[in-house]
């Protein structure tokens, strides 16, 4: 066999001196086969025989027959793009031998015997034709089996699998439990005692419906559900990296999200605005603010490799867009075809091409770059301030004229060369000398005029509202290329904007760019495609997120990944029915909330049923409602609500609650970027707390606040002693326990029993049992007996109520 191949090679390359091949083989054996031999293979490339060499590696051929110097192997040994061997550049002599060898067609005998496996298993594009997530949303009818009493189609879908497993749904949770559950789910806050009482008293058949309507109409709804979306879009207000500098006016995007949820903006519109608000509705401040979506990622203001950084920024956009809206991990195809999903590498760059008109966050270190700040002032206001600006500019001009005239008067007294110099670029030097020639009253007047001018220049632009957004897009962006191995310095073939082949592919028609165009018009095309009812993923991905936040886990539990590496849907028909329902209901998210919240499944008890637990311990079939711990923001907001300190002010620039000095000490400049807010501002809801990538409030960090560097589809729930230490020793909890104690004293002065009962009411929303009230009173008595002032004893009791599982967990 060996002889045969050698013979063939020699036959094909008759003029190749055998000695060249021999020398090349020696170099390869010595330097390359450790990683490209028969053992562990790097980059999928073997240099053991001609066939392997011809097949190339994961990124394709390594020999370019026509242009030998463009081949990857050639470049790699020259340390151009790739550096091979990594341990050090080969000697000049060795490199010359290999270059000559490559130029001669790279003849190679079998250095080592290798068995060639069948073609490597690659994702097949045909898979796209059968894989469930890429098929159109099925028009599903609820199962013919009857919808249970008081329930809705959701229950009929769930009962099919439950029935097969011999399981039944738990009975309905009691009214109080349900009130607490749904209030937290929709607003992130506990119900007030008055709300509990009113709801328990309301025995009308539609009491629950009214409750849901009231909660959905509450402004707190947008604050809770907006936060879920902010997790998905990696919302943060700083850029990360060395300086972790601010993203000015990012809060407007956060407010846009909260307002969109509160207004029940159709989800398809919400999607379109974020992807292409500037192209769809350029005069609408909200739509422009929505494009802040593109600006939320990490940004390196001092990259070692600018081009690499530019494509890292695009990668952030491609990855987030595909995961957030489509549940696709397109980011896996940046360097090579997706390992398992039918996403070829070209799809990644075709998607990237839609975003090619978006300029870098900033072209220098300035975080206030005009490429990422956009004027979103409402039209009427803008007209007013434009008038103001005009007037101001007029004044500035008048002042400038007066200053020059007065200077000229003085300059006329100066020597001729100065007079001449004053007419050119050197005028500032001449002006510096004026004081030797001016009369005192002239000097005074000049100072006065200059002060007026300086004051005008320092005035902020009147009433102008800037938002973090994309700005100054490039209507005619340069061509997008596939990047070999994802390396921006290694351009492959040009690609044009196109949709993933798994979803039918196609190269859309992009409208021509006119002279007035402020962008390339591609993103609107993408937005329309994503937000189309025919897109198989968009509606499914969104209803799955809604389900996840209501039912503890998505029907597809990997809610950012509907691909093969993700998890299969537990209830595919239900998912399709919900997706269809969303579209039928005009993409109104609140309508979907109502559907889910009115199912028996949502309203059932979380109590354990031992037989069901044995059969389905992880509750995949939904035989009970899953208990959950409050999310980080809910923990902090609830503590503030109970202590009476929570401020309900909505929207606006973010706030900076105090952070203990020992935590700030972890910063390179302790306290930098954290101008602690005044009390009232500090006590606003957590969604308004400044999101600084390198610094978190301890109470939020302890409770698994989202990591903001990439999209966060699901929060972890971890239990670590640092949470417990914070609960009993932390500054925040101890202060809030004090406020709660004072609240109790002022609401029930001198009545210990009432105070104790009230604290339990506020934290559990249920009627306290006499035994626990007695135990709390005994606890206080013991503390007072030990010499504690009653106020401090009460404060310590409050600490137990704020740390209790019943407060932090929902049934």
């Amino acid at each position, binding site marked *: 066999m060996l002889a045969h191949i050698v013979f063939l090679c020699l036959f094909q390359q008759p003029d190749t001196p055998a000695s060249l091949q021999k020398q090349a083989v020696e170099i390869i054996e010595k330097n390359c086969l450790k990683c490209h031999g028969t053992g562990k293979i790097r980059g999928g490339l073997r240099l053991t025989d001609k066939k392997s060499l011809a097949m190339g590696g994961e990124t394709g051929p390594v020999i370019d027959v026509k242009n030998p110097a463009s081949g990857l192997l050639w470049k790699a040994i020259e340390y151009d793009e790739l550096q091979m061997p*990594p341990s050090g550049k080969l000697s000049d002599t060795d490199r010359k031998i290999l270059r000559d060898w490559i130029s001669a067609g790279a003849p190679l005998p079998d250095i080592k015997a290798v068995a060639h496996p069948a073609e490597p298993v690659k994702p097949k594009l045909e898979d796209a034709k059968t894989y469930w997530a890429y098929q159109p949303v099925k028009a599903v009818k609820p199962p013919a089996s009857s919808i249970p009493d008081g329930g809705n189609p959701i229950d009929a879908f769930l009962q099919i699998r439950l029935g097969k497993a011999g399981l039944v749904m738990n009975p309905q949770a009691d009214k109080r439990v349900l009130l607490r559950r749904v209030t937290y789910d929709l607003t992130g806050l506990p119900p007030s005692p008055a709300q509990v009482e009113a709801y328990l008293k309301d025995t009308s058949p539609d009491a629950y419906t009214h409750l849901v309507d009231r909660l959905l109409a509450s402004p707190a709804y947008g604050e809770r559900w907006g936060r879920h979306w902010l997790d998905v879009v990696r919302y943060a207000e700083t850029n990360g*990296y*060395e300086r972790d500098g601010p993203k000015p006016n990012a809060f407007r995007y956060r407010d846009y999200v909260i307002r969109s949820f509160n207004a029940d903006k159709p989800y398809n519109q919400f999607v379109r605005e974020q992807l292409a608000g500037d192209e769809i509705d350029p005069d609408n401040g909200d739509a422009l603010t929505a494009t802040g979506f593109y600006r939320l990622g990490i940004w390196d203001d001092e990259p070692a490799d600018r081009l690499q950084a530019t494509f890292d920024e695009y990668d952030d956009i491609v990855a987030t867009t595909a995961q957030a809206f489509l549940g696709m991990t397109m980011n896996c195809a940046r360097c090579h075809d997706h*390992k398992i999903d039918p996403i070829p590498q070209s799809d990644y760059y075709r998607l990237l091409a839609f975003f090619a008109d978006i300029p870098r966050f900033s072209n220098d270190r300035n975080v206030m770059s005009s490429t990422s700040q956009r004027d979103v002032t409402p039209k009427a206001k803008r007209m007013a301030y434009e008038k103001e600006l005009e007037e101001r500019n007029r004044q500035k001009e008048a002042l400038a004229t007066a200053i020059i005239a007065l200077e000229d008067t003085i300059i006329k007294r100066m020597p001729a060369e100065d007079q001449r110099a004053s007419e050119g670029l050197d005028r500032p030097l001449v002006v510096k000398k004026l004081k030797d020639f001016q009369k005192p009253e002239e000097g005074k007047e000049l100072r006065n005029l200059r002060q007026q001018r300086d004051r005008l220049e320092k005035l902020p632009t009147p009433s102008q509202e800037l938002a973090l957004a994309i700005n100054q897009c490039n209507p005619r962006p340069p061509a997008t290329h596939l990047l070999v191995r994802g390396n921006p310095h290694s351009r492959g073939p040009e690609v044009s904007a196109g949709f993933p082949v798994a979803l039918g592919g196609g190269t859309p028609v992009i409208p021509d760019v006119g002279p007035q165009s402020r962008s390339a018009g591609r993103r609107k095309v993408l937005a329309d495609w994503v937000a189309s009812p025919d897109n198989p993923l968009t509606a499914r991905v969104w209803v799955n997120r809604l389900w996840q936040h209501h039912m503890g886990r*998505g029907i597809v539990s990997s809610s950012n990944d509907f691909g093969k590496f993700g998890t299969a849907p537990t209830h595919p028909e239900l998912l399709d029915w919900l997706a269809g329902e969303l579209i039928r209901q005009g993409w109104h998210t609140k309508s979907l909330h109502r559907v889910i919240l009115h199912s028996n499944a949502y309203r059932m008890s979380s109590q354990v049923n031992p037989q069901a637990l044995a059969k389905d311990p992880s509750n995949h079939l939904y035989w009970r409602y899953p208990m959950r711990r409050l999310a980080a923001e809910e923990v902090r907001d609830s503590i503030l609500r109970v202590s009476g300190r929570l401020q309900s002010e909505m929207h606006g620039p973010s706030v900076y609650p105090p952070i203990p000095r020992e935590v700030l000490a972890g910063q390179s400049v302790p306290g930098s970027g954290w101008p602690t807010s005044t009390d009232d501002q500090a006590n606003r809801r957590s969604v308004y707390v400044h999101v600084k990538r390198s610094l978190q409030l301890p109470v939020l960090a302890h409770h698994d606040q989202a990591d903001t560097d990439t999209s966060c589809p699901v929060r972890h729930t971890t239990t*670590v002693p640092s949470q417990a230490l914070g609960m*009993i020793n932390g500054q925040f909890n101890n202060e809030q326990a004090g406020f709660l104690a004072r609240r109790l004293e002022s609401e029930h002065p001198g009545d210990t029993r009432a105070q104790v009962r009230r604290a339990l009411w506020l934290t559990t929303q249920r009627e306290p049992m006499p035994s626990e009230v007695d135990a709390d009173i005994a606890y206080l008595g013991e*503390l007072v007996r030990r010499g504690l002032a009653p106020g401090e004893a009460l404060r310590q009791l409050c600490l137990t109520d704020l740390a209790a599982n019943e407060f932090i967990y929902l049934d």
Partner: protein
Amino acid sequence: MDESRQFCGRTRRDFLWNTGAGFPAIALSGLLGDQFFAKATRAADGTPLGNPLAPKKPMGEAKAKSVIFLFMYGGPSHMDTFDYKPALYPLDGKTIPVKTFGRGGHRAGGRAVGPKWQFKPGGQCGKMISDVFPNLRERADDIAFIHSFHAESPIHGSAMLMMNSGRLLSGHPALGSWVNYGLGSVNENMPGFVVMLDKTGGPISGAKNWSSGYMPAAYQGNILRATTPSINDLSLAPGMTPANQRHLLDRLAEKNQAHHLSRVDNSELAARLSSFELAYRMQSTAPQVADFSQEDARTHAMYGIDRPRTEDFGRKCLLARRLVERGVRFIQIYSGGAHNDDNWDAHSDIVSNHSKHAGNTDLPIAGLLADLKRRGLLDSTLVVWGGEFGRQPTAEYAQGSGRDHNAYGFTMWMAGGGIKGGTSVGATDELGAAAVEDRFHVKNLHATVLNRLGLDPNNLSYFYGGLDQKLVGVEGADPIRKILV
């Protein structure tokens, strides 16, 4: 699919080999009692998990159990410390052609700055080491020097992330997180990943350098101080006494038990209940770790704790040894913090800057190596020394001896568990400008650390964002075999 293998709902494979792939938890007795990490971490998809930090068997043979990473933040100069460049001395002050890339951008040449210290041989191996490290020179036989590292960025922020997490971009777990993910923690009363900061402050990017990124927070680095209180929120709040805190926790436990009674199947509630007891015990165990009163005067002297100059770093090194004794997996100590000359970032005057930082750390680090050795701990403890990059052979400014950053070539050293002492591998060119021989990427350092701990760098993976993420990246990396025992 086995549902119990699910973790966090992001993926189905995240925790495969933690929970279901047959790695039995190793019961370790004689430690400080109950667990640091309570039993339950719940996936957000509703699946209860095991303890994410339960001890796991290494994937292969482990030479080391713990790592002490001495991070010389700012970038120490290799040609003034461990990388002897005799050819550079006579060039001092002369303009030379040399390709550099630092904060000042790409340059093709500049004024050479000769090494500012003399080098002398140390140990049996005769390793040439600069006078700036007279004590470490005596330990040369314990140390393997790697002179041929190169990194991808000469800018602090991204270079720090590269050295700590293998990526220029934040959001990825730190080396210490990977170690704890791979091995779990055998100390149940202390965090498995501990970070000690310089007294001047944290490094650039702060907590991003010890973040667990997309992994659960259980794997992130915890700040520990060599003073009291050593851990955040460890001290009693104003108005609280130890007795009353006990009383409080008892009442809290009653409330939590009453609540748990009708929810007994929920292990998360039980875990949270017991986490308060763990926290309570940490208040006494953590200060014990930082209580040096049982250490004799000789030990104090070894670490330089008896001298004002070296006391601070010496305390941290001694604390590191005490943490190693208690089974803490990964300890990172920063020399240098904040900005400019508060760390090794010697842009204007290499002599004053490095005299200061080397002077603060030389004796403590030499003491740490000696102390670990005499206690038989060096064999199972991997000590790593280095910064995020090295420095250039040429001056940055027209005046002065400051050097700009250099990611083209720099030196790091390792000692202890499974490392061949008294060896040197790789080389930079004769000026120290770039690694030319046996070049190693930062990933090779990470691969070496994981390999010594019995973890396979090319197979230790965590599924996130549609990919099997690895510390050493998709292309993988080999350990530096020439320094392995």
